[in-house]
């Protein structure tokens, strides 16, 4: 065999193997080129999933006629001039491989009418390339910008062609790519057409949030929460913006989780993990949140030159960005009410929807009418009522009946304009609302277990003074009401969540790590004996520091046998048996779900075990609860953040809003 230098075509074809995998890669490369050429509108036409035709037309700067041939030769680019630019890349492309690769494996036609220094060329030039054959460029008529036609992709690499999938599959890849790019370039308009059918039409000059909503789906607009975060200059000056979907719209694929770094959609396991981490305990583990995260960071903090398709990047400080993303999203989720809405069957039936939309103006008019009368309502009455309440509250607090008289004077003093009847009204208000409030407080005292709740209630508006109605259904669900409607609570899920929060706060520390302390553990008079193989014993030895924090103490006492010396006291009182519990823990550890290999794994493991503990210790579905217990459970619900989902991510509560009820009963 003789060693020879490979012909250019072959080199390009080999390179194409890396860069051009499938039609979607062509779209990606060309669209990115168009964006680098400052296009504001990009039209993508696909036929037969790109098997037949991929056409990308932009209105960008274009390619000068005399540069056309150079553009299709390898390692030719306008984007990179010197090696030091490589460290801080701010264009999407830079390798100079795309056009060369594409043209080497397809029949490519490039039509371009360039604009240079604000001046657009008189006419466009066309270059046709078919594998290695370059036809001389010829002039043509064309709008300013570039049109790239790629036909018969992989016509000269049959092996590759054979691996192309169904047109529909290939198109879905193209669609995905376009979506990802459009996500970032919200200022650029995109039109995607497949077999003459318009698939995507995104207008130019959208804002970031408009673009995210247009892409993720208008129907879930309300389920997206916007968040921003700016790092301090000295901490690296990263900027974060994004939209996070409510836990209830989490999907089973990670297709709806978009990560963008410095204007590039990337895949990064670390950051995906960070997002999932932020949703920990809010969504089931097999789901991925819907979210778009945009990070702007100093270009030197990230290396994009690690992967030919640039889908992966490498961070200089991966941990810092992990924390940044996780905290920003977690904070955003904490700040919002995440309770999912209960859906009634036949909710939002389209039959009713249409007329409602038509009536918009009418509704507005009605609303205005209502508002008018609201404004017109006798001011004194409302004022008097407010005063009464305040008076009663102060009275209740200070036990000073004198205040009431004072108030009466107050009212009469100010009620100059009102008639005699007007004076009577507030007086009767005094009596009725006083007795109401009084009885409510009495009942509250009997119904609500903890005094702290009572304290909280009295300081709140009168509406909340009424005793909360609580009903346990089928010994599994708790139904109650709040200002917005009906709450349906899964007793096990909620109790589990509350326990989990309490335990995590104790073990991990609530505010700072210093107040973290191990679970209280009860030592055993006689150790409980657990069979454990050598491997399991090693594993337990490894987990020892973790177990100590969890109040579990285990010692090997012989071959194949370990002794449980201490076990969390609350688990005992909740009748959780030590041996089966440890068995399950070991099995999870064997599966790798619990490990202490690094700090983040250790935290995961802690969560995992605390989760197990709270699940086992919590009230089960089917457990009868007394009224006091129910009230206590609901009171605790208020105390903890993130009670909307159980630690497994299932919702703990559903809300049926009054609005929905009214709609369903045809009262709206």
């Amino acid at each position, binding site marked *: 065999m003789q060693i020879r230098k490979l012909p250019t075509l072959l080199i390009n074809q080999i390179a194409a193997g890396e860069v051009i995998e499938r039609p979607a890669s062509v779209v990606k490369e060309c669209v990115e080129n168009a964006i680098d050429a400052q296009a504001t509108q990009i039209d993508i036409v696909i036929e037969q999933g790109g098997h037949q035709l991929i056409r990308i037309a932009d209105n960008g700067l274009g390619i000068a006629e005399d540069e056309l041939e150079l553009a299709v030769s390898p390692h030719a680019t306008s984007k990179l001039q010197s090696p030091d630019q490589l460290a801080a890349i701010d264009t999407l492309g830079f390798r100079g491989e795309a056009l060369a690769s594409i043209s080497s494996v397809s029949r490519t036609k490039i039509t371009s009418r360039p604009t240079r220094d604000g001046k657009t060329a008189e006419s466009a030039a066309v270059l046709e390339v078919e594998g290695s054959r370059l036809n001389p460029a010829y002039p043509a008529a064309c709008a300013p910008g570039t049109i790239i036609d790629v036909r018969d992709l992989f016509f000269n690499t049959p092996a590759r062609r054979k691996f192309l999938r169904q047109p529909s599959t290939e198109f879905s890849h193209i669609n995905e790519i376009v979506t990802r790019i459009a996500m970032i370039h919200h200022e650029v308009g995109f039109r995607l057409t497949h077999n003459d059918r318009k698939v995507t039409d995104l207008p130019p000059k959208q804002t970031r949030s408009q673009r995210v909503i247009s892409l993720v789906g208008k129907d879930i607009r309300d389920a997206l929460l916007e968040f921003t975060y700016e790092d301090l200059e000295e901490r690296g000056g990263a900027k974060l913006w994004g939209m996070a979907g409510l836990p209830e719209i989490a999907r089973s694929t990670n297709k709806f989780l978009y990560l963008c770094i410095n204007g590039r959609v990337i895949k990064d396991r670390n950051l995906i993990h960070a997002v999932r981490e932020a949703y920990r305990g809010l969504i089931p583990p097999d789901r991925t949140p819907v979210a778009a995260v945009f990070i702007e960071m100093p270009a030197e903090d990230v290396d994009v030159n690690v992967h030919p398709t640039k889908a992966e990047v490498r961070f200089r400080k991966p941990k810092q960005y992990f924390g940044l993303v996780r905290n920003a999203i977690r904070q955003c989720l904490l700040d919002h009410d995440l309770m999912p809405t209960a859906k009634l069957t036949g909710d939002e039936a389209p039959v009713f929807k249409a007329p409602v939309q038509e009536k918009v103006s009418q509704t507005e008019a009605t609303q205005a009418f209502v508002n008018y009368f609201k404004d017109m309502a006798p001011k004194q009455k409302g004022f008097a009522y407010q005063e009464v309440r305040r008076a009663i509250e102060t009275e209740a607090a200070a036990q000073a009946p004198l205040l009431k008289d004072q108030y009466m004077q107050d009212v009469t003093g100010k009620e100059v304009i009102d008639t005699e009847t007007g004076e009577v009204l507030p007086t009767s208000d005094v009596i009725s609302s006083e007795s109401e409030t009084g009885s409510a407080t009495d009942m509250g005292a009997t119904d609500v277990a903890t005094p702290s709740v009572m304290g909280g209630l009295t300081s709140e508006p009168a509406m909340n003074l009424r005793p909360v109605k609580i009903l346990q259904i089928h010994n599994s669900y708790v139904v109650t009401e709040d200002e917005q409607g009906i709450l349906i609570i899964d007793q096990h899920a909620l109790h589990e969540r509350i326990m989990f929060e309490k335990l995590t*706060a*104790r073990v991990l520390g609530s505010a700072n790590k210093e107040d973290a302390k191990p*679970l*209280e553990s*009860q*030592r055993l*008079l*006689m150790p409980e004996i657990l069979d454990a193989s050598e491997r399991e014993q090693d594993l337990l030895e490894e987990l020892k520091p973790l177990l100590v924090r969890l109040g579990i103490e285990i010692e090997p006492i012989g071959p194949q046998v370990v002794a449980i010396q*201490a076990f969390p006291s609350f688990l005992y009182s909740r009748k959780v048996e030590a041996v089966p519990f440890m068995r399950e823990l070991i099995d999870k550890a064997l599966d790798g779900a619990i490990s202490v290999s690094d700090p983040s794994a250790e935290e995961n493991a802690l969560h995992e075990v605390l989760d197990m503990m709270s699940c086992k210790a919590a009230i089960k579905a089917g457990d009868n609860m007394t009224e006091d217990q129910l009230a206590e459970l609901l009171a605790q619900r208020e105390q903890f953040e993130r009670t909307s989902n159980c630690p497994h991510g299932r919702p703990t509560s559903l809300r049926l809003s009054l609005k929905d009820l009214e709609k369903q009963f045809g009262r709206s």
Partner: protein
Amino acid sequence: MKVICDRSALVESLNLVGGVIVSRTPKPVLSCVKVTATDGALTLCGTDMEVAVKLTTPRVEVAESGDMLIPSEKLIAIVRESIDATLTIEATDEAAKITGQDSKFTIYGYNIEDYPPIPEYDGDPDFEVSAEELHRLIAMTIFATARENSRYAINGVLVERDKNKLSVVATDGHRLALAKGMCNSHNDTPQSAIVPTKALNLLLRLFDDAEQTVAVKIKDGQIMFATEEATLSTNLVEGNFPPYADVIPKDGDKKVTIATDVLVSAVRRAALLTNEESKGVRMAFDQAGLTLSSRAPEMGEAVIKTEIDEYVGEDIEIGFNPQYLLDALKVADESQVHIDMKATNKPGVLRTGPQFLYVIMPVNLQ
């Protein structure tokens, strides 16, 4: 069979026998009380196949002897609700007739042949013990049994006898109660048996006359307690009781003596600020006294300083579940208790006199 009974005496007896009878059982005969009339006496029997109680009712007049099964729940309800001073119970072919002055009940029973045999007490007892002593021994230990536990045989109480010394032991794995007493032995071989908790609870109610002497016999996996009127027999818990002697520490070098009521009050107060996740009460002993402290996150904390009568040894801080302490202090029959301790993570031993000892495992406090 026909008997005329004093109603109030019958209510009392039925309540005792009813304690063993379970109302929901796959074998309906077990939901019945067996009523036997012999010359001059009426005997009631109940069993759940584990525990059997046989009780002779006083103040009856037997007109015709015989026996029958009557559903216990209904019989008890009828006898309790009746207003007569006496009731007549009569057996017909298939039913029991209960007749009062203005009432007549007919309850369908079951065939007497289907009723399981009730163990008969016969022969000499292994030992005899006064009802008062038996009461004390059981009350001092039964609280420490495990309520639901499959481990070992600790959902029963161990009764051990060597010559005329009786020891009763109960544990739930976190604490252990040991009470010692005397008996009148008729058997030189040491004996031990694990008696189920349910039987002992019944025993406490059955032999409530302190003057009585209870004869005890252990035989064929059963233990029988008998007086002239009543017999209680139960299957023993099979299995091994944990080697309790090994877990009673003898090396406690920090010894405290404290007035029982002072300690009870202090522990009860400290327990007010504990919750499910932070049950433990921290107890710091030194020459100056005992400081108890407790803390429940988001609730608050308590500190109680009390005097102690005597303290020997270095200072120590140790955590205990207050309920465990109170359980034992409740049965302590002396005005002073002694607690021996070794270290923060080693058990404490609480003693009142030579007859009661209680081992309590600490809670790890941080």
